[in-house]
């Protein structure tokens, strides 16, 4: 066991998967010599060589497209896109191609690729460096989308993603890259894709979140009345959706608040709220609440904290739902 940050846990998972499987190769802008913008791939080129940790030109479409080709050819590429906003130039390759080859070839051609992408706000960066586009990719059949929020899950889910037979977008909440440490086993282990985690058990109200806002939810819970028993769920995987865990929880509590950074309209919370009313209608005692980013372009710096759901807004949403 070692006490690791999220960044270190990801680095460890990459190291171990590269040790174990020579088909795993990394590629991206400055991932090698420089160790990546957030230093996630630090030391890997020195260890595995420039053939397996490839510094690419500044060209996301080229990175994504060639990673797809590598995967088609039997390798296990792990491309890095430096920030979620730079998925833009790679969007065609990712959604029109990576996501669809399996269907298009009726299963003959598959894309076992893991796209690593730092995501979300809270680091004082401007738009394109602070957005939360998970719903866009969850809305793309053929892609899996995950977003771990703890070092333990980060390691186990990255290993699952690399071994997965289909393309996985592995979003890394950059705000909590180094926010805290956690015991992470030295040995390889997997955390399954498609399985949410109950962070805290409770009976009165379910709070569902993912990524960096899980921490804001925990903070919010510290300031709520003690007799309000909250069940906190970390989705961990956005798609495929763990419907069972949600339905079981909300059927028990009858109340649910969904928290995410992305703009509220058509955010992933909208899908969850729909699933809840489809499956838990007779158990619901209040409308499902969403505490989310606003329907506006991710604002810069001074307004960033007004945009992001914080413990105060989450607590207010919870109290409103509890009082309904």
């Amino acid at each position, binding site marked *: 066991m070692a006490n690791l940050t999220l960044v270190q846990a990801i680095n460890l998972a990459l190291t171990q998967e590269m040790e174990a499987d020579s088909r795993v190769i990394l590629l991206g802008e400055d991932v090698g010599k420089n160790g990546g913008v957030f230093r996630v791939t630090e030391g890997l080129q020195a260890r595995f060589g420039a053939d397996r940790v490839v510094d690419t030109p500044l060209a996301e479409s080229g990175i994504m497209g060639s990673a797809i080709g590598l995967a088609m050819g039997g390798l296990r590429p792990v491309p890095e896109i430096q920030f979620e906003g730079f998925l833009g130039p790679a969007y065609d390759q990712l959604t029109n191609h990576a996501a669809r080859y399996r269907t298009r070839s009726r299963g003959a051609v598959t894309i076992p690729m893991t796209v690593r992408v730092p995501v979300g706000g809270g680091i004082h960066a*401007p738009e394109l460096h602070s957005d939360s586009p998970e719903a866009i990719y969850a809305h793309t059949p053929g892609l899996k989308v995950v977003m771990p929020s703890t070092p333990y899950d980060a390691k186990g889910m990255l290993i699952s993603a690399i071994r997965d037979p289909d393309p996985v977008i592995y979003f890394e909440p950059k705000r909590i890259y180094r926010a805290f440490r956690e015991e992470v086993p030295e040995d390889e282990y997997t955390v399954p894709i498609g399985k949410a985690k109950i962070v805290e058990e409770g009976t009165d109200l379910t709070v569902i979140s993912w990524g960096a806002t899980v921490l804001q939810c925990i903070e919010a819970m510290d300031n709520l009345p003690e007799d309000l028993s909250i069940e906190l769920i970390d989705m961990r995987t956005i798609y495929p959706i763990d419907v069972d865990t949600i339905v079981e929880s909300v059927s028990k509590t009858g109340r649910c608040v969904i928290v995410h950074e992305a703009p509220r309209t058509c955010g992933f919370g909208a899908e969850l709220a729909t699933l809840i009313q489809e499956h838990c209608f007779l158990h619901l005692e209040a409308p499902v609440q969403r505490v989310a980013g606003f329907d506006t372009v991710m604002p810069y710096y*001074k307004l*960033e904290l007004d945009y992001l759901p914080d413990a105060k807004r989450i607590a207010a949403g919870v109290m409103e739902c509890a009082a309904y």
Partner: protein
Amino acid sequence: MSMTTTDPGVNRPSAALADDILLGWLRKMLLIREFEIRTMAAYQQAKIGGFCHIYNGQEAVVTGTFAAINDDDPIITAYRDHGHALARGMDPRHCMAEMYGRVSGCAKGKGGSMHMFDKPNWLFGGHGIVGAQTPVGAGLAFGAKYTHEVLKRGPKKVCLCFLGDGAINQGAFHEAMNLAGLFSIPVIYIIENNGYSMGTAIHRGTTMHDKLYKKAEANAIEPIEIDGMDVLNVYDKFKPYADMLREEQRPGFVDLKTYRYQGHSMSDPQKYRTKEEVGEYQDRDPINSLAHHVLSQRECLTEDEFKALQKEVKAQVKEAVAFAEADPAPDPEAELYSDVYANPQPNLSPIRDYVEGAKNPLL
């Protein structure tokens, strides 16, 4: 190392310019340098957020090329854009306030360091997505040509579209060059070739790195190479080239060799280069070169006047910082929901209606 590349025998357009014009360039470059020094200090004190890309070393690029075009020629650039904004005439107070994320910033503190817009001065923004501005620059030039030739309004224009050497490798740029070449669009792509794309030296990321002009030729664009460490040289080479492209209404490509003294952004350990390499370029510093020229060759400035000029610029930037610090942050009630759409109307957002925010100080 010689401080100037003046060779008196050759026809130099800059030789015909009045002293005041060269002194204006010197002032501009001093202003940009001083602005960046203050910016770095403010960043280190965490008064500026996000990412911050410093222009030190590259001042001759914007100063020399802007001097060769008209005030109403459109300009578009990448995220290393403070120098472009200042050289185009943005008030340093609004530029600094933008960095600080304050409401009197050029984009009301909504764009930040990477997104400097100054529409009255025909500056159509910095761009945070590398290469994104290159097809847009073609569109600006296309529009200007259409306005002139089809609508019979306005003069012949060129659009200057700046990009870094790393940005050359974005697919968008190749689409844009082909379009510009095919339709003979008067966009001039200026590669600010500082040799690095973040931590990647140009030869590690780019084919034919010492013959970039071939990429332009492949798209029927007639290119030139210019040493960008000397503003007189930039002007002398660029002026006739831009005049020709304007007259003939066709695209251009300049491999403009320059250097950035600072790291890529403010958080760059710079493991990819040596101090000696930086020193070699600093020995050819564009501000020193021009100062030397006006002090010792043209002799249109005395040492005392030079000191006074430096003092004046320092005071101006200091005042810009004080302005930014005193300026209020945007009011979340008004500014979180403003400027997303025109004509606010109900139900665009189920949370809150979009509103008209504060007036942009540069409009």
